[in-house]
């Protein structure tokens, strides 16, 4: 009988009850909170459900992220930039760049909205983060999850990857809440009521050339973005070429969702209590809000400038879509515009800056890598 009691004692020693810190318990609660937001509130569930579950698992059983642990194997694929690149391929296969081709001036709005990144970068520097950490954090303002994970990995900011990813996806889910007040504060009702001309028809040959040209231009200027931009554009080329439907379908469906599961759970598992429950996380949360707000504002303000210069042909509301968060931010532009005038249909016009913002954020990330000499 002493064998049984002794072994039971050993078992008890191994249970989570005696091994977990208060921090782990707090993180389990946080994970449940994220699950609630994702499932009950519908906030970016495709990524928040796996992320929150990874968070849950790593805080109950930390060795799952140690060498040889299940989620550690998945995590290696993040670190090697494989998963973010493959997600971008799927995004490319799902994205219609037509509105951007029809109205290339949208690129300017996609550029302007990247100011949110730099506002957060300045803030992060002032809050005491070092250069690379500040850059990795600030890219949250780009509202592109895969780019955030890609840059954090390339800049070696593994310790911050959990908070960055969680903040990025959380704020992306909050776009419909964060943006409208800023958009309304910065525009007059007359501006919001501006109806834009219908976009011109975009031919198939233009759609096919677009991904090739963007790849050549962006990757020539900022070569280190090639995995990300290249895969995004390859996915789009699959889509627009029309001759490889099976690849389009696979890239945007089975492959992408497999990758989402592996990436989500493993990124979630970087949020062990020690990595997450500290001042950095709180600063990152604040900086993320700064980034989204400034990005929205600079997009709208640049939209107002374009409105002036074009003699009132551009509705400034489409500027906020430049933060990307495709297609959520474009829908917000549509919604705020329709509030001012129910017959105003801005969605297609906002899609231009929206997808331009994806390229803009990749360029910003590439610039950081170039500045820090990362190849």
């Amino acid at each position, binding site marked *: 009988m002493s064998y049984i009691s002794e072994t039971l004692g050993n078992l008890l020693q191994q249970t989570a009850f005696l091994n977990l810190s208060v921090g782990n318990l707090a993180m389990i609660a946080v994970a449940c909170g994220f699950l609630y937001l994702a499932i009950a509130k519908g906030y970016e569930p495709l990524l928040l459900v796996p992320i929150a579950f990874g968070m849950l698992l790593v805080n109950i059983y930390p060795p799952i992220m140690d060498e040889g642990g299940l989620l550690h194997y998945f995590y290696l694929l993040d670190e090697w930039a494989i998963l973010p690149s493959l997600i971008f391929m799927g995004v490319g296969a799902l994205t219609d760049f037509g509105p951007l*081709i029809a109205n290339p001036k949208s*690129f300017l709005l996609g*550029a302007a909205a990247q100011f949110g990144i730099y506002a957060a970068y300045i803030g992060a520097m002032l809050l005491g983060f070092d250069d690379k950490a500040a850059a990795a954090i600030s890219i949250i303002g780009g509202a592109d999850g895969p780019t955030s994970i890609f840059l954090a990995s390339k800049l070696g900011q593994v310790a911050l990857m959990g908070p960055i990813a969680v903040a990025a996806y959380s704020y992306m889910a909050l776009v419909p809440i964060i943006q409208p007040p800023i958009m309304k504060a910065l525009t007059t009702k007359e501006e919001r009521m501006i109806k834009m001309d219908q976009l011109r028809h975009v031919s198939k040959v*233009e759609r096919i050339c677009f991904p090739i040209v963007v790849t050549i231009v*962006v990757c020539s200027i900022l070569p280190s973005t090639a995995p990300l931009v290249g895969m995004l554009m390859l996915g789009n080329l699959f889509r627009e070429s*029309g001759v490889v439907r099976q690849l389009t379908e696979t890239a945007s469906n089975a492959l992408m969702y497999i990758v989402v599961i592996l990436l989500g759970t493993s990124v979630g598992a970087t949020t062990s209590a020690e990595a997450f429950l500290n001042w950095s996380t709180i600063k990152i949360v604040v900086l993320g809000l700064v980034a989204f707000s400034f990005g929205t504002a600079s997009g709208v303000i640049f939209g107002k400038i374009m409105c002036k210069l074009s003699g009132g042909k551009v509705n400034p509301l489409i500027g906020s879509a430049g933060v990307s968060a495709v297609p959520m931010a474009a829908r917000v532009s549509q919604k705020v515009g329709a509030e001012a005038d129910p017959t105003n249909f801005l969605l297609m016009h906002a899609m231009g800056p929206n997808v331009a913002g994806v390229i803009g954020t990749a360029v*910003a990330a590439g610039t*950081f890598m170039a500045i820090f000499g990362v190849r």
Partner: protein
Amino acid sequence: MTLSEIFTKAIMNTILGMGVVFSVLIFISFIISLFKYLPGLLEGRKTKKHPAAADDSASIRPADATDRKVSEDTSEGDPVMVAVITAAVHALMREETVTTDAYVVRSIRRI
């Protein structure tokens, strides 16, 4: 580094970053703005060579993604039959949540 040095560096990198972002995107924007001449260019060429086959690149492509996909998949189908099936599939799939999204019958496939 003092706070002011840090701030200076941050501002420098910001100017640099926004500068590169704008430069690159304006450059692409310029190239893409030339795209509108592309179909005409190709059509001109084609017209010279095969006057009858020039409609390819100028084919009308409806903006609505649903129509586009379906029309691609059924370019040769009996339009009435297609309409019936399309309506049926839409009825089967209709959801209120997100109405701007495209509906695609992915699964009917040719191997």
